[in-house]
């Protein structure tokens, strides 16, 4: 159990700076999700915490101590990789026991701890198998088991679910969450999937092009995105961006008006829009409409509500409390 602090972390590859200063203090036992599109530097950030990449400037602290110059093995961390990185020539048991064996843990204790982790992850029947004889979900569990048995003070997850199919991903997501709650280990979790971020995180770090655009609890980030990027990235379908002059009371400097699809309602009067196509998803129906000025917007409706047909003209209304303005820099205003 430990806190993790990143203080002004930057990273350059050659002359190209890819991470431009990240500051965050992570509480003991907190589940932090680093989310962002590919190439935003989220994996690099995680690898710097792990010690697999050097830190160009700034300081990584684990449990209050500076660890910049420590080898990965001396940081008391465990990492779950995207491709699981299991040792292909070892049995599941040996995969999980590897770290303990190297640490010189007595055999009886190794057996006990591996058995404990195997029970927790429902892997008891697979301990003698090789990784290639396991399904994707089972391999994922072995990778988790390997992290758990060492009882590290920090877990690092690098897109651990992206190689699984959609259904399994939802299931494993829940398992990871439960496991983390149960063990109470400080965790950093990298993903590009905003749904994973929303569901797993105590707090999330939304990264964009090497910067942390916003750090906060998922619902807080959802309700109050600080930048246009965060507003568009978190939430599915994404937030609508309309020209700011559609609102009469737009603050000076505002160029865009952001409204979530669920906050757009159909009304008798208001902004006219033409329905281009509808997507009935079962529980909800999405209307994709074009405004008179050519802007495309999405309206989220309950499936049971009567919804207009494609080609019809509708009128949109929204509540002033649910809109957000952004300036030309993409910053909230």
């Amino acid at each position, binding site marked *: 159990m430990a806190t993790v602090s990143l203080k002004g972390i930057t990273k350059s590859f050659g002359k190209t700076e890819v991470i431009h200063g990240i500051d965050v203090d992570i509480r003991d036992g907190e589940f932090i999700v680093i989310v962002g599109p590919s190439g935003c530097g989220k994996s690099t950030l995680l690898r710097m915490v792990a010690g697999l990449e050097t830190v160009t400037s700034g300081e990584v602290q684990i449990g209050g101590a500076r660890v910049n110059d420590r080898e990965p093995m001396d940081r008391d961390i465990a*990492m779950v990789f995207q491709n699981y990185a299991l040792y292909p020539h070892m049995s599941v048991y040996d995969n999980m026991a590897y770290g303990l064996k190297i640490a010189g843990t007595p055999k009886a204790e190794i057996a006990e701890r591996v058995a404990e982790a195997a029970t927790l992850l429902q892997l008891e029947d697979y301990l003698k198998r090789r990784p290639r004889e396991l399904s994707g979900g089972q391999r994922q569990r072995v990778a988790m088991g*390997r992290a758990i048995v060492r009882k590290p003070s920090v877990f690092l997850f690098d897109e651990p679910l992206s190689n699984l199919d959609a259904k399994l991903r939802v299931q494993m997501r829940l398992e990871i969450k439960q496991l983390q709650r149960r063990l109470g280990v400080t965790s950093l979790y990298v993903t590009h999937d905003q749904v994973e971020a929303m569901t797993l995180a105590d707090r999330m770090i939304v990264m964009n092009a090497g910067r942390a655009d916003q750090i906060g609890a998922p619902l807080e980030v959802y309700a109050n995105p600080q930048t246009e990027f965060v507003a568009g990235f978190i939430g599915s379908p994404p937030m609508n961006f309309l020209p700011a002059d559609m609102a009469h009371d737009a603050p000076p400097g505002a160029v865009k008006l952001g409204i979530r699809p669920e906050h757009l309602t159909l009304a008798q009067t208001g902004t006219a829009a033409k329905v281009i196509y509808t997507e009935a998803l079962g529980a909800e129906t999405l209307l994709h409409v074009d405004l008179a000025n050519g802007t495309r917007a999405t309206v989220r409706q309950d499936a049971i509500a009567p919804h207009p047909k494609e080609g019809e003209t509708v009128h949109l209304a929204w509540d002033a409390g649910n809109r957000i303005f952004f300036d030309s820099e993409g910053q909230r205003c």
Partner: protein
Amino acid sequence: MEKRVTFKGIWLPLLLVLPQMLVTAVFFFYPAGQAIWQSLFIPDPFGLSMRYVGLGNFEYLLSNPYYRASFVTTAVFSILVTVLSMGVALYLAVLADRLIKGSGVYRTLLIWPYAVAPAVAGVLWLFMFNTRVGVVTWYLGVLGYDWNHVLNGEEAMGLVVVASAWGRISYNFLFFLAGLQAIPRSVIEAAAIDGARFWTRFRTIVWPLLSPTTFFLLVVNIVYAFFETFGVIHTITSGGPQQATTILVYKVYADGFVGQDLGSSAAQSVILLLIVGALTVLQFKYIERRVHY
């Protein structure tokens, strides 16, 4: 799915495989048959008459201490060449695998010796170790060591081993490097996080994962040391001194073309043929297993 072509007649397919069959017949079946046939006779030195002796040539060979000594020489030579060339290649490959800048240049330079023909490589090393004008010999002399592989059998063996292994390092290096780079980086990183330092990682992760490559190279290098080192030995020592470097394949040549004992030479060829056969079977079995793996 395998694509199969169906021919209507028998003549076109026959015509298509004919070149291959001809090559195999002319360069393998005919000489091999000839060798087996000749191994049953003792011809006179002028090739005018042949006397049938049955398996006499083989009996004589297997009871001949020189021939048995040649087996030992071959074993020592092959093991040394294989271990030396694979060991150095693995070491260089591990270094190159860690290299980030300039690895292209490094690799290219390391591959060059492979392009040098064995006989040329032999002459090269002979120049350096020549007992009178060799550079290395001179420096060894400065250090107080009197190098003379013409008289000293062990030094002769050392020299042909080094000269044979040298060109082979490139080939092994390529395979080892490819093998190392096929190991996922994340597996190595996982081991590093698990607490394994470089040497532990190498012993417990890299080496086991590299073993298919190692086994393949082991077979290929033994075959090389057995048969393809003729040029090196011929140019450097001609099998001497006192047969200290006469490996089996060189003895076939020495007994047949120098000693003019064609029957014995043919019998030795047949024995070598059996050894090649065994090694090839081993290799094929292995390669097939690899395909399924």
